[in-house]
């Protein structure tokens, strides 16, 4: 989503993105005319008139699970996005929690009184 119109989105897809991704990007390219949606999500820069690099993960219950926002100079890391989605999916499926830097397949933690003071034993990255 950006403040560009849907017409500009179409041109970007056809002129550039389709040359970088086979078939073009498959998801909807949304237009935030006037930045109204970016304001509600806290990522609209009024001075520049654009949305900054905001990213949100929303779960199947429509609850926001993660948010990240960067000023425009630095691009994002899709690997970290995918890691976070997989971690939230794992937590939702199992009730376990994932320690820092967790990757799928690695040890998770079961929160509770028994874990207090024992994280150092359960988790040795």
């Amino acid at each position, binding site marked *: *989503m*950006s*403040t*560009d*119109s*849907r*017409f*500009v*989105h*179409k*041109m*970007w*897809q056809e002129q*550039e993105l389709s040359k970088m991704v086979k*078939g*073009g*990007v*498959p998801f*909807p*390219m*949304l*237009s*935030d*005319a*006037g930045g*109204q*949606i*970016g*304001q*509600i*999500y*806290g*990522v609209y820069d009024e001075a*520049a008139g*654009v*949305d*900054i*690099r*905001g*990213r*949100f*993960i*929303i*779960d*199947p219950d*429509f*609850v*926001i*699970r*993660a*948010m990240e926002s960067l000023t*425009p100079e630095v*691009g*994002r890391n899709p690997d970290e*996005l995918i890691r976070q*989605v997989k971690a*939230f*999916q794992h937590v939702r499926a199992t009730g376990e929690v994932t320690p820092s830097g967790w990757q799928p397949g690695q040890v998770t933690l079961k929160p509770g009184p028994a874990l207090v003071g024992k994280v150092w034993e359960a988790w040795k990255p």
Partner: protein
Amino acid sequence: MPEMKEGCVKPARGPILPASQAAAPATGTTTSQEVKRVLARVGKEAIDFEANAFVEGVGFKPVKLSDYKGKWIVLCFYPGDFTFV
């Protein structure tokens, strides 16, 4: 791709605030504009919206965030087309 019948001005609804938020008066102001408070917070329900969109293979259509309710959603903002994201 189907023919796109579309004028250049076709506003989408933008933010669709829950009744409790929309009814809250803008304190200390007399503006008739919508309240532009930041409402997105982790652990809270996402704020729905409708935006005009270009969708590959479909064309132009309005898309609501709640169209994807029940799925995992990544919502991504970026400053501008033809730049990196």
